[in-house]
């Protein structure tokens, strides 16, 4: 990847005051929506918009990496009754902090993207679910939404067309699980954030039993660009299998942590050494967690030539997740890190399914034993056994998210764990 230095950011470009509507429109904002609503030759019907987005292959930026346009095409034909778009800005995974940059610096890009999506799927109401702790970002969004309403960019007859859509902001109440798409719907309905059983999928029975699509904030923010410049432009950015700009959230022991918009498929070492300007205090790199705390940890030796895209990371034994990369230097206590991550998932398990409710707590308690020097090598095998009892046995993926760090951290750094444990010959089984 040589052109990253010359890459012009499109999601959070370096333009002062882009969070003001007039500035945003001056820089081409709302051209895409205008074209979609009025340019009958290019965009004859909503299906043509869906087709273009599908063609662009915007892989969902919330972690699952599913083609957004394909997801839109699952919506049943409009029947005149309400249909919803739920925008997921819950962003609670440790290590992930990209969406708030959009809320802060380019809120109208997201609102425009969501409005285009609403047009494409004949949506009647857009719900934007924002993490409750993002108090000031919620205020920024409230201002942006009210400005968009005043300018006729939301509400009735948008831009003079016969298309109307409402946008409702909803603040979360501090539960990580409400970032899971179906419990987000439950939460929007005013219920307890319990993930729903699938099927039926949200596109069949979503919010209040009506067809609903759930998209990540960053995913929708890519839509205006695709409409304006075409799917081919989008696909020309980054790697082929996972195209487009990515908001890399780099945190941890680097000199310049932060959110960087760069093409997909950036080499991990370039991100650490050049983008984030190297390890803090000249320490040696020990490991990274590539895409939020649930993605399996990768030791430094596996990072040479590794690029940040879904396929490459899967090949290396991890996942792209939200591209929220946590960098750890040689002084990091891996055992304690894992214990802290497990503590998080124990605290956040909603408690609906047995393996997750009980398993997350059990993992944390055993890890606490290991951290305090009470553990035995048998405990490590027990931990691995418990993860196999949790994975794939629950309604949502929180159990997997809790199990993977334990499984991969222990298997990839077993010697460090064993050094903290007393030997034991008692088998686990």
């Amino acid at each position, binding site marked *: 990847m040589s052109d990253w230095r010359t890459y012009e950011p499109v999601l959070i470009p370096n333009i002062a005051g882009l969070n003001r509507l007039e500035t945003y429109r001056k820089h081409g904002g709302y051209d895409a929506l205008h074209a979609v609503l009025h340019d009958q030759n290019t965009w004859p019907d909503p299906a043509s918009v869906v087709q273009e987005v599908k063609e662009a292959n915007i892989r969902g930026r919330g972690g699952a990496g599913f083609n957004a346009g394909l997801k839109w095409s699952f919506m049943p034909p409009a029947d005149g009754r309400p249909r919803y778009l739920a925008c997921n800005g819950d962003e609670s995974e440790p290590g992930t902090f990209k969406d708030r940059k959009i809320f802060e610096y380019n809120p109208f890009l997201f609102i425009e993207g969501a409005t285009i999506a609403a047009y494409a799927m004949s949506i009647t109401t857009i719900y934007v679910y924002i993490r409750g702790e993002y108090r000031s970002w919620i205020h920024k969004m409230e201002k942006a939404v009210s400005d968009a309403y005043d300018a006729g960019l939301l509400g009735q007859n948008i831009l003079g067309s016969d298309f109307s859509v409402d946008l409702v902001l909803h603040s979360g109440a501090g539960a990580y699980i409400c970032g899971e798409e179906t419990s987000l719907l439950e939460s929007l309905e005013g219920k307890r954030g*319990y993930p729903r*059983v699938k099927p039926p999928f949200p596109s069949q029975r979503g919010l209040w039993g009506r067809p609903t699509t759930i998209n990540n904030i960053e995913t929708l923010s890519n839509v205006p660009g695709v409409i304006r410049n075409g799917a081919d432009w989008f696909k020309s950015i980054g790697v082929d299998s996972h195209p487009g700009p990515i908001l890399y959230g780099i945190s941890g022991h680097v000199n310049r942590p932060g959110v960087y918009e760069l093409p997909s498929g950036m080499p991990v070492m370039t991100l650490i050494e050049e983008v984030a300007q190297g390890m803090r205090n000249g320490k040696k790199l020990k490991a990274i967690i590539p895409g939020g705390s649930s993605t399996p940890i990768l030791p430094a030796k596996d990072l040479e030539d590794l690029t940040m895209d879904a396929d490459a990371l899967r090949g290396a034994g991890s996942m792209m997740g939200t591209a929220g990369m946590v960098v750890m230097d040689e002084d990091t206590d891996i055992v304690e890190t894992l214990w802290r991550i497990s503590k998080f998932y124990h605290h956040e398990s909603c408690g609906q399914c*047995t393996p997750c409710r*009980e398993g*997350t*707590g059990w993992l944390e308690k055993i890890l606490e034993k290991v951290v305090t020097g009470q553990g035995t090598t048998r405990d490590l095998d027990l931990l691995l056994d418990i993860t196999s009892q949790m994975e794939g*046995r629950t309604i949502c993926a929180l159990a997997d998210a809790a199990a993977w760090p334990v499984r991969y951290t222990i298997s990839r750094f077993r010697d460090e764990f064993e050094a903290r444990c007393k030997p034991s010959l008692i088998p686990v089984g």
Partner: protein
Amino acid sequence: MAEIVIDGITYSFDGKPKLLDFILSKDKDVPFFCYHPSMSAPANCRMCMVKVGQYVKNRETGDYELDDQGERQIRWFPKLQTSCNMDMMDDMIVHTHETDDLVKRAHKDTLEMILINHPLDCPICDQAGECPLQIQTYKYGPEGSRFEVKKQHKPKHVQLGPRVTLDAERCINCTRCTRFTDEISQSHQLTITRRGDKNHPTTAPGTEFDDPYSMNTIDLCPVGALTSTDFRFKARVWEMNQTPGLDITNGKGVNVDLWTRDNVVLRITPRHNPHVNEYWMTDKGRDAIHLYNEERLSTPAIRLHPKDISLVMSSWDNAYQTTQEIVESTDPKQILVLGSPYASVEENGAWMQFSEAILKQLPSYTTHIEKGSGDGFLLVDDQAPNTHGCELLGLKKRTKAAFKKAVAEAKVILSLHDDYIERGWLSEEEIKGKTWIYFGTNHTQMAKAATLTIPITCAVEHTASYINVDQRIQRTYPAKETKYTNRRLDLEMSEGRLDRFGTKFDHWVNEDHKVDCKPLWEIVGDLSLLWGHTLSYRHGRDVLDALGSKIPALEGVTYQAMDDQRGLLLTLSETQEASS
């Protein structure tokens, strides 16, 4: 018709049944906790896991794809599936724990997880003995636990409402109770609070769980988390007898099970009847234990002088002879005979025959309908269990005014069950100077005001039938012995472990729990002998048979048929319909 292969056996099916339902209907076992046939399936206990696959078909030809050995290829689902919410499809292959070790392991794993924070206090838990968690752990669970760290502590003995106590540590978070209040009773009083292994059901702050159906959650709870405040720590399940019966606290005719030990009814639980109450009953119906156990009339009693404050015990012979003397010394026109919608068809029938043969009059009755107290579910306006029975027998229905007039004109009144004083229809003043012979079960105000009380068996001491508001005739079984019945000789009575293996001298036996009362039809038979008639009935069945030959609607109605069909729907004639 679609086909499915479960553990190597092919079954055909119609429609889209849920897999768990279907497997259970084939008499196979799949363990589950959160699933309940009449509520939604949240699939949260993760217990009913099965391995599911589908035969691969060629898209073009529609033929099955075959592998090297010529067997049909199977595409397995990547994960184990919960069978409770799995729609059955054609060409599905299912492996349960009987044929698949992975499924067996999954059951073991889930049970291990459920048990790590469960207090394992079975020895002091009310649920022990009828606990799905206990049973399934024995059947499918791990041999021991590998959990060697501290258990999660949660609130204990929380009084959720007047009748339900919560032990949150025992809760396995199946959400059956919250779904019951959301979907069945629709009071929405319960919810789950807190997250992860700290969560448990509770009410909203400042409110209590006083749903009129709240105690159904106790039956639903697959562990001992929700227990009955009243029954808590009273008895072990295996010490009790379980006898089918009916809820007689209103006209719905809810089917119940009566749980007795040493001839005391300790609790009442609903019995499944898809035609009447499904799996549920009212809390009021469970309160009937007090009616059956406490303040019972035992041994006839007589007021020797009108000014005496209390009645004195009498012998049965003396009571009968006194009745005869009173009746014979009175002008038949000044005698009033009252039947009761609280008494069974058999009792009212025998009563009617006695009255017609000896007193030459048709008994009358009053209904007890409270308009507006029904809720369209199990609470109904009719507060008596057998109003339709009285109608069917053709007893004379009286309004309050007509009843008061008849009482005022009568000198001698023979009445059954009803407590007119408590109901406010009569004052003690109004019956001063009258001779009131009361045939009843409890020390009601009526009994206290009567001249002569003759104790009769209550609904849990005899076999008799009741016709509910929907005109369904259903019957009871004897659950309690009287002084004159014997559990070992009466083949209709259930015999619990203690009855069978205990002896008369065991410390748990108390003869005082047997009430000195007789079925009304026996009393009527004994009385009629004094007049030279022989209305000899030894059993409710004799009365029912006799009524069957007189009343067309009851023709062919037998206890056997009621048992087989969960009660029989009668067709009452137009006139009777109209008069109701």
